[in-house]
């Protein structure tokens, strides 16, 4: 099979204006993935499926990843004019000073697709598409028209991560009920406080159970105070 670099070149040659980035995988498997821009993802996916040499006709897995906002501390060299007293005379001196600057890389949601070719017997080719942020700009193009097997998996990603797939034929929740509002696989998901009975609690569950008890005790104290 072609390497990711060759696939990237093939995509760029076949789909005009397509933007592809190689996301390296430093582990032993070296399964590098191709990051696609959402606006060209559909054409690129169609090319990957229909290209005679690649013919990635089988989507085996689609999943989501939630990447939180990241704070990055960088050391930057800054040129500064400093007033220094040299030999009793004030002088303006240019100096380079190292400064630590913090910047926040906004988080995003990511859909990951694993492609194989049944006809050629090769794979996987991993493609990733990222949303602009985690809150309001969370739509991605659906690849269900390209690979039918994406239908339920995209519904599951929509259900658990909250990525909205535009062009999906039937985008409803898959595992949770329709009235449910949260996305349980997001890292900031707050699960309901149902720790009233934990006979064998430990670690996190113990903490949650204790917090629940404290909250209950505070509530009854307030009630008793109001009653008296």
């Amino acid at each position, binding site marked *: 099979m072609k390497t990711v670099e060759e696939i990237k070149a093939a995509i760029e040659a076949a789909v005009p204006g397509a933007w592809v980035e190689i996301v390296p995988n430093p582990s032993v498997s070296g399964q590098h993935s191709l990051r696609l821009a959402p606006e060209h993802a559909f054409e690129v996916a169609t090319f990957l499926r229909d290209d005679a040499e690649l013919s990635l006709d089988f989507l085996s897995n689609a999943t989501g990843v939630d990447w939180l906002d990241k704070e990055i501390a960088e050391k930057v060299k800054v040129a500064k004019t400093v007033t220094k007293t040299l030999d009793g005379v004030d002088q303006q001196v240019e100096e380079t000073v190292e400064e630590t600057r913090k910047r926040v890389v906004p988080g995003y949601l990511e859909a990951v697709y694993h492609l194989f070719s049944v006809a050629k017997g090769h794979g996987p080719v991993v493609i990733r598409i990222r949303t602009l942020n985690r809150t309001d700009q969370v739509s991605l193009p659906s690849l269900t028209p390209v690979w039918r097997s994406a239908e339920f998996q995209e519904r599951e990603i929509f259900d658990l991560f909250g990525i909205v797939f535009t062009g999906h034929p039937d985008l409803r929740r898959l*595992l949770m009920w329709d009235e449910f*509002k949260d996305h349980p696989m997001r890292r900031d998901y707050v699960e309901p406080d149902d720790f009233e009975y934990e006979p064998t609690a430990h670690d996190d*569950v113990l903490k949650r159970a204790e917090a629940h008890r404290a909250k209950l005790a505070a509530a009854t104290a307030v009630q008793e105070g109001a009653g008296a």
Partner: protein
Amino acid sequence: MAVEAGLKIELGKQGVFVTTIEELYNWGRRSSIWPMQFGLACCAIEMIATTMARYDLARFGAEVFRPSPRQADLMIISGTVTKKMAPQVVRLYNQMAEPKYVIAMGACAISGGPFKQGYNVLKGIDRYIPVDVHIPGCPPRPEALLHAFMTLQKKIDGQHLTGEGRPRHLDAEAQGEFPVPVQGEHDLEPTSNPGVWPVPITIR
């Protein structure tokens, strides 16, 4: 009043059978517990195995799995009850005719089991409907399910038809229908039925 056991045997030797209405009634109830044909997860496979020739559930008069709650006496909660499924389970239970019984089979049906902290897992079906027999195990072996049947039969046999503690279907005041939880925006509402499941007090 029950007839003395020794006298009963002596009379039986003479070809006279003596019994009480209570005994006869309970014998009828316990000898034909028809379960509902209803499986939720991997425990259902063990339940199916129990009905097959090797374990032979027919010995207990319970081999007739009914595909309708109207014809069933027993609900075997065989597997994980998800929060999405819980209202349907309670609704099916409500649709069953009295007398009706529940066996919570396996760790998940009892407490949520290995999936207890999952976002979609109910922490035990006994929060919404009254459970007669709990069987631990993951999954319980067919023998354990047979033991649950025997426990249930023993329980039915011990019930008196009148007075305090009589079975629910003979008590006009007793609650026979249980509120179906509503699927809310974050969780089931309510999260439990306090009439069935008052929060147990943990003693350490």
